[in-house]
């Protein structure tokens, strides 16, 4: 078992619980999607797993060791973290940026060695972005930045990779490329935990999924069992169809016209109700 979270509870102010008594565990090479609406505590849970925030009760174990007892660089040797976005201030080159992933393997007063450069180059190759190596991270596109951050996490040589909404800021093409990259990393034996706002993406790559709602996991198990119409309605408060689509050859999640949007999206009558000038919900 790579990651085991048991009876985890956390609160920022000691009164209102962000989440309470959460337990789940991940095996080697497993892809796990954590779903839930905005502000439900997914990112907080990630920070607790990374030991950036300390749990109030419960424990997080990585490869059998409690993260609470581990030093930051020990955690970073086991767990790679890909944040939602990177706000680049200084124009580091992509190679230098990926090289930063080697930090947990470098002692405090040292600088990266030849071996670290090789590992960083290897991570760039693995993700297929060697062409970006000299480009400043402040000047590349959002999709490229996501790949560079995944490469940086890979340079840590982690056994667990945590991604915080890896597809939220990307166009649909880059979303799929990111999902494909995640899938191929899992095939190499890296365990993946990702937060996502797209139950659809969970179907594409996940072996298992869980939904965080109201501070607890309302569902946890194989993706097909968790991502159901009932669970999604409870989590997001809108009706979502879960269907197998022949043409796409997979299960998809599609929200039903949630509040009577007037354009409706019906085939054959595009724009019939445009006169009103209202297009949104």
């Amino acid at each position, binding site marked *: 078992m790579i990651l085991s979270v048991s009876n985890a509870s956390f609160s920022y102010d000691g009164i209102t619980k962000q989440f309470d008594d959460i337990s789940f565990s991940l095996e080697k090479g497993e892809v796990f999607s954590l779903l839930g609406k905005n502000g439900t505590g997914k990112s907080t849970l990630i*920070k607790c797993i*990374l030991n*950036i925030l300390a749990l109030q009760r419960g424990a997080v174990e990585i490869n059998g060791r409690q993260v609470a007892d581990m*030093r*930051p*660089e*020990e*955690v*970073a*040797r086991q*767990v790679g*973290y890909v*944040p939602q976005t*990177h*706000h680049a*201030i*200084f*124009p*580091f*080159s992509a190679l*230098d*940026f990926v090289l*930063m*992933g080697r*930090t*947990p393997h*470098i002692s*405090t*007063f*040292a*600088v*990266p060695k030849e071996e670290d450069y090789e590992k960083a180059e290897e991570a760039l190759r693995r993700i297929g972005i060697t062409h970006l190596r*000299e480009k*400043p991270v*402040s*000047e590349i596109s959002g999709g490229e930045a996501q790949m560079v951050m995944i490469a*940086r996490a890979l340079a*840590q040589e982690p056994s667990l990779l945590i991604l915080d909404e890896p597809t939220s800021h990307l166009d649909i093409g880059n979303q799929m490329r990111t999902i494909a990259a995640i899938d191929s990393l899992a095939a190499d034996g890296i365990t993946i935990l990702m937060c996502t706002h797209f139950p659809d993406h969970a179907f594409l790559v996940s072996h298992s999924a869980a939904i965080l709602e109201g501070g607890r996991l309302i569902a946890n198990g194989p993706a097909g069992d968790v991502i159901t119409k009932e669970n999604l309605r409870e989590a997001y408060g809108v009706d979502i169809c879960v269907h197998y689509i022949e043409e796409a050859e997979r299960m998809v999640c599609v929200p039903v016209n949630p509040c009577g949007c007037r354009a409706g999206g019906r085939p054959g009558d595009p724009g019939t109700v445009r006169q009103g000038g209202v297009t949104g919900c």
Partner: protein
Amino acid sequence: MNRGEETGCEDEGGVVINPPQMSTGGGVSIGETIRRIIPAGKAIYLLPVALFIFSLFFGRYMMDPVETLRILIIGSANTLLDWGSSLLSILSDQQVILPSFEQTWGASEQTVIFRIRLPRVVAAMLVGGGLSIAGASFQGLFRNPLVSPDILGVSAGAGFGAALGILLSGNPMVIQVSAFVFGIVAVSVAYCIGRTVGRGSTLVLVLGGIIVGSLFSAFISLTKYVADPYDTLPAIVFWLMGSLSAVSNADIIAIAPPILIGSLCLFLVRWRINLLAVGEEEARALGVDTKWMTMVLVIASTVVTASAVCISGIIGWVGLVVPHIGRMLVGPDFRKLIPVSAVLGASFLLIVDDIARTLSAAEIPLGILTALVGAPFFAYLLTRKKVGWIS
């Protein structure tokens, strides 16, 4: 990128290093040879060496460059031999006199070089280099290229300390110690605010610095208000504008160790500063103990800045702009930026101080000149080269 780096270095070298005396005699072939032996990226490290020698013979009392070098080397050797003699005498309990070189120059040259110019030149390099390293580190730590070393209130604190010293005693020693102590006190208070209110977040740390800075600025105004307008008030005002005119060898011996040790600390953690510059949370996730690292950077930068400010007064601009110039030359990577900032800062303040002491019979305060010289130069650089953080 390498191309630009090279031209950047060469340009600067060409403009600043060569005094007229040196550029006689077969410049091209020598220049070519030098360029082949020393890679362009490293050439910049020769800049302060050249400026150091230049600043020793250049001044209102102009000296011969070769003679200056001779005096410097033989004079230093004699001083070392003197020290050796007394050390051996103490150790062996009898009078030992090591041989020494003959002094072929006059007492005035001796005084000008060893008593007046050398401490001043060394002080300019220490202060300029130190402020620049501290500025570069703070810009990384706070992820903000507009941050200067006094963001946490060290200058305001030191300024108040100095003003208080001038008001109460007037003894230069007291003024310096008071400036140093209050500089450290100001940053400690800012750090405590950041630590207790913001749980170590750098944003709250900056707010703490702003609070403390404005508080001490008010204290400075208060001391000015109560100071004697014909005696202590001008002294306070002049101190706040910064100057190296009164620096002695004893000052150098006092401030060199803290500046060098603090700078060495910052140099050693230069890779970790990269991580902090990328983001606190990301740095933490990449295994950096950010709280500890923040503390190291704040302490080291503050010791360096407070040591510099306590002998030079408040010299703005250097710590803010020199790291930018460094970034234009070698990019944002702190592995290169820290040493390059030190070298550029030392060179920059040396040039400015040369101007300050030679331009007119009266000393021009450094704080005025750093901006007068630096601002147009920086504006020129901005127009000439693309800067990463301006899109």
